[in-house]
């Protein structure tokens, strides 16, 4: 069974600091990769996704993620965070042969301080 690991459970940064959140998955086949974000009091929403092609994908609000197949990783990055980026971030994996089942990591709570 596939699994997803997010190494950082809580991250606190100051505004303008750079962000990198780790994500590793266990499935060895072809995967689709996602980062979802949940702002306080809001529903989960898609931040970015990788299906094929360029392993560096760009999402909304200046976020990007890089798929490194050899490391089974899909780390999320942002060069300069803002206070409004305070949220919980979830990495998720869907294996191509597994229908539409999406497996989530445990999430990383990001707090950005002014």
């Amino acid at each position, binding site marked *: 069974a596939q699994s997803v690991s997010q190494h950082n459970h809580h991250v606190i940064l100051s505004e303008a600091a750079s962000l990198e959140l780790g994500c590793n998955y266990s499935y060895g086949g072809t995967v689709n990769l996602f980062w979802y974000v949940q702002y306080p009091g*809001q*529903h*989960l929403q*898609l931040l970015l*996704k990788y299906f094929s092609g360029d392993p560096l994908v760009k999402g909304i609000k200046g976020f990007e993620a890089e798929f490194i197949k050899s490391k089974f990783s899909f780390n999320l990055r942002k060069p300069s965070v803002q206070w409004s980026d305070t949220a919980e971030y979830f990495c998720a994996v869907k294996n191509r042969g597994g*229908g*539409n*089942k999406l497996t989530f990591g445990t999430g990383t709570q990001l707090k950005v301080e002014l």
Partner: protein
Amino acid sequence: EAGVVQSPRYKIIEKKQPVAFWCNPISGHNTLYWYLQNLGQGPELLIRYENEEAVDDSQLPKDRFSAERLKGVDSTLKIQPAELGDSAVYLCASSFSQGTGELFFGEGSRLTVL
């Protein structure tokens, strides 16, 4: 376009009582999911429907949980009887079955069992 609608947003019940959650997916989405999210954890799939058919219910505790999607649109998730450990957020999501795999989530139903 309306998103995924869930109700109720909050529910407080005593243990051993029944509870039901309702979900209306995005129009045209034939795949519907119920996820369970415990505090500090990522969402975990309970059941997935393709139209009216439950195609993955392996994680649904069938002794007390049941779900239905009779006309392939709205869905109901029921717990009877509820236990203290059922306190969590119940998320509904929908997607196109042949789409990019992106799930669209509702705001969730937060259950507290006393």
